[in-house]
């Protein structure tokens, strides 16, 4: 029996169709989770995964292109352990580098390198990969920038900045949206009108202008920690109306239900009812909505940092790393400086797909839902 028939027969018996169970995640959802999981791991263990500190300058190799990783040496012999050749500078006015095929340095996993403190606490000196610290060369998987800093290391540290801002903004936006939408929908009246009209005002301003205007409200030179807080505040203030509207409509649909009246009859306070009965119902769509706007946080951070008013050097963020690539000559001579753009693209795409996937999985009206539940 098809889905239609099942529902029909249940309605005939006077029953409501139960809430569908969350759909199992298959296919490309797994790929999204894998990408985001890897990203989170990289961001979480940046000190270990990055071979060098994001500030370390390798002055001998400025604007070095990504170093090729070899398995087969110049004499055609295969090596099980990948290796890199030493780098020598080609004489001339322009900085150009060539591989010195006589000097071969194996790439090891878990090599000792620059000492670090994981999350600023746990001391360590092992890195995921690299060449032996005794060797005269350093391994730059994605090359170096114009100050000789390892691009891969900066990309890894930058992922931490970008992702933590995006996730903190998601949380802040969600909390703000739940609070405003919950109060608005539950109490109604002039509170509702005030909050919702204000939200519409915020939404009516184009995002980039709003973000820049909010940025202008903060001092230009602020510490790194404050910058992160500021960006989170900006994104939360710019994005809460979308979450709040959704939460409000959900609250309105739930607030009149008998189980809410039943809680009131049991002596529950407004706060209790909101927390235990109304907001849990609004939470799922709110999370979906917030997940859908995560990419805009990532892009917003990149935009502000690109414009020089977000994360400041030497702290890396994908946005300010791209700022170095705004010069045409650098674009032409150092293409690897565009790699942070690729990272932004992949991350934004993954988060967008995640939002869609959650929505598909939880929306009973979605056409891609498997048949026959309930």
């Amino acid at each position, binding site marked *: 029996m098809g889905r239609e028939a099942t529902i029909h027969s249940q309605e005939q018996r006077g029953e409501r169709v*139960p809430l569908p169970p969350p759909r199992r995640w298959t296919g490309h959802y797994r790929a999204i989770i894998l990408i985001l999981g890897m990203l989170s791991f990289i961001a979480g263990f940046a000190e270990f995964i990055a071979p060098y500190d994001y500030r370390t300058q390798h002055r001998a190799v400025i604007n070095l292109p990504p170093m090729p990783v070899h398995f087969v040496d110049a004499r055609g012999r295969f090596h099980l352990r990948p290796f890199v050749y030493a780098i020598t500078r080609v004489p001339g006015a322009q900085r150009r580098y060539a591989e010195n095929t006589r000097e071969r340095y194996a790439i090891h996993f878990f090599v000792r390198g620059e000492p670090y403190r994981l999350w600023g606490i746990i001391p360590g000196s092992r890195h995921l990969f690299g060449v032996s610290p005794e060797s005269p060369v350093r391994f730059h998987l994605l090359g170096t920038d114009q100050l000789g800093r390892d691009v891969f290391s900066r990309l890894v540290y930058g992922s931490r900045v970008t992702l933590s801002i995006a996730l903190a903004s998601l949380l802040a936006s969600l909390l703000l949206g739940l609070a405003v939408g919950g109060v608005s929908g539950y109490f109604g009246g002039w509170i509702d009108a005030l909050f919702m009209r204000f939200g519409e005002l915020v939404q009516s301003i184009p995002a980039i202008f709003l973000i820049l205007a909010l940025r202008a409200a903060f001092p230009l030179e602020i510490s790194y920690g404050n910058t992160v807080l500021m960006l989170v505040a900006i994104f939360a203030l710019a994005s809460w109306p979308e979450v709040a509207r959704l939460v409000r409509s959900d609250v309105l649909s739930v607030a009149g239900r*008998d*189980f809410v009246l*039943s*809680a009131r*009859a*049991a*002596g*529950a306070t407004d706060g209790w009812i909101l927390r235990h009965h109304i907001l*849990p119902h609004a939470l799922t769509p709110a999370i979906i909505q917030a997940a859908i706007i995560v990419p805009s946080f990532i892009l917003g951070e990149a935009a502000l940092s690109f414009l020089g008013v977000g994360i400041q050097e030497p702290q890396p963020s994908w946005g300010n790393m791209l700022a170095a690539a705004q010069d045409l000559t650098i674009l032409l001579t150092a293409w690897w400086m565009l790699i942070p753009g690729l990272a932004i693209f992949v991350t934004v795409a993954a988060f967008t797909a995640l939002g869609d996937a959650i929505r598909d999985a939880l929306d009973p009206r979605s056409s891609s839902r498997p048949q026959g539940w309930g």
Partner: protein
Amino acid sequence: MREDEKLVEVIELKKYFALRKGLLGTQRQSVRAVDGISFTIHRGETFALVGESGCGKTTTGRCLLRLIEPTSGSIRFAGTDLLSLNRAEMRAMRRHMQIIFQDPYAALDPRMTIGQIIEEPLQIHRWGTKAERRERVRQLLAEVGLDSDAIHQYPHEFSGGQRQRIGIARALALNPTFIVADEPVSALDVSVQAQIINLLQDLQDQHGLTYLFISHDLAVVQHLATRVAVMYLGKLVEVAPRSEIYRHPQHPYTQLLLSSVPVPDPDARRERELPRGEIPTALNPPSGCRFHTRCPYALPECREQEPPLIEIQRHHWVACHLVGHNHH
């Protein structure tokens, strides 16, 4: 039965719902859902409130528990004027008065387990320790005839009758004295209805509960009511002990309601007419006696003068000009 001990006393209760019309909500109209009703419920009795849908019986029940704020009137519960209580005092009072809903599907939060649903009133009133509350939930489940395995299950896993049992267990959690049962069986199959009614009666015997039993079905009420009040368009038209109302219905509306109760006998002949026409709207109720538009015996004065509710016999109150004529 301590018949004369008043538990709930309702005096001139009114509830008007404001309707907004026009672009700026300037034109105001109100639905007079409950339009000045008075009655008393004695401790330990089952007071049935009967009427067609839209007559204001559910609104009355909810006003009694202050789930809806009445427009005017007074409600005394065990000697306390409920409408004079502030929010915190009212919340504390709620443990003595509970409600059972008509729709057992809508009354249980679908995201909570049965254990959580029944425990919630206890948590709200900070009743006992966690272990004591768990024990109480088990005891309540047993009392309403459900297995204690239900604790970890969700509402959608249960049938309508079982869900209504869960709703009853929740209502009983705090040992209330008064329960508003708002059409507790009308959403259920006939076979299940009897089980739930028996359960409600058993619980009443065990705990000395007082019920306000709201129903549109005189047949259901016949089994358990002590007294019956018939409501029409926001007004009470007749209040009498059960035996009186079924044997000697005085108000034409009560008579018509009784005549529409199905009789499980194919040879039984219907003596009375069925109600004529639709129930008028409470937005603009008829003048005089509200029933005159459908009443087969309507007199000219019924159109102009509203009949008062008078006691024609001991404990038998009727609001009808005809009945008044017969007795004077």
